């Protein structure tokens, strides 16, 4: 099962190189999502299925959606419409598609192999993680909740309407 790790690692490195060399933010995001999915497969191959699922749901899901929201919100002038037209030309999506097909082939291979050969090393089950997370690491969970609250308040404060509206508005 080692080769699954190495193929995913290769895909992750290639797509990461492509992320930092793109000039278009949306193209870079496509490659970044491929990179994160490759890392999720690496976690799967290393015997960490719970973290692999978290990587897909939170990183490739929630955090990337935030990035896409902001890039679409900024809507960088006239070039945005041109980008939209470009998105339908094959040159843009063929690269991420090929890389993601490699990952999909690995995933199909994994399911074809059967459940008992999914991971290379010893697998750490979600149950063990939960027991450790709410046992010795419970103070970390409390601190994470405070960090998230601080992030929420900070993002709300920074995302408020512009300062000029303070003169006539009632918000302090």
């Amino acid at each position, binding site marked *: 099962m080692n080769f699954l790790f190495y193929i995913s690692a290769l895909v992750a490195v290639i797509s990461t190189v492509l992320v*930092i060399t793109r000039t278009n933010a949306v193209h*870079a995001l496509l490659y970044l999502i491929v990179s994160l999915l490759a890392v999720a497969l*690496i976690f799967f191959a290393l015997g960490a299925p719970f973290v692999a699922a978290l990587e897909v749901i939170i*990183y490739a899901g929630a955090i990337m959606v935030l990035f896409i929201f*902001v*890039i679409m919100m900024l809507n960088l002038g006239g070039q945005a419409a041109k980008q939209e037209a470009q998105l339908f030309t094959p040159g843009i999506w063929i690269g991420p598609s090929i890389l993601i097909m490699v990952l999909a082939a690995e995933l199909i291979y994994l399911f074809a192999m059967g459940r008992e050969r999914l991971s290379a*090393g010893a697998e750490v089950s979600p149950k063990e993680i939960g027991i450790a997370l709410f046992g010795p690491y419970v103070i970390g969970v409390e601190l994470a909740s405070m960090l998230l609250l601080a992030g929420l308040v900070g993002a709300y404060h920074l995302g408020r309407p512009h300062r000029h509206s303070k003169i006539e508005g009632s918000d302090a």
Partner: protein
Amino acid sequence: MMATVPMEHGLILAALIFALGFVGVLVRRNIVFMLMSIEIMLNAVGIAFVVAGARWAQPDGQIMFIFILTMAAAEVSVGLALVIQLYHNLKTLDADAANSMKG
């Protein structure tokens, strides 16, 4: 028993991806790309933790990854709010445009 991936290879991969993210932060001047590179670096650190956790078959590495994930979510929400503020104030995404502090 199947052969497992050596820990060194996982750590080399983590170092490689971290270096790529670091180069991204240094080279790119578009602030959205700099945020993406920071995400790449955080992810690389997460790989290192999970590789180490898999080496000793302990849940601690994965727990540290969950904390990194939480931190990344908080960081990216504040960071993107700052990007929007920068764009509204300066009408550009160039990080060098914000080099002067005017009270």
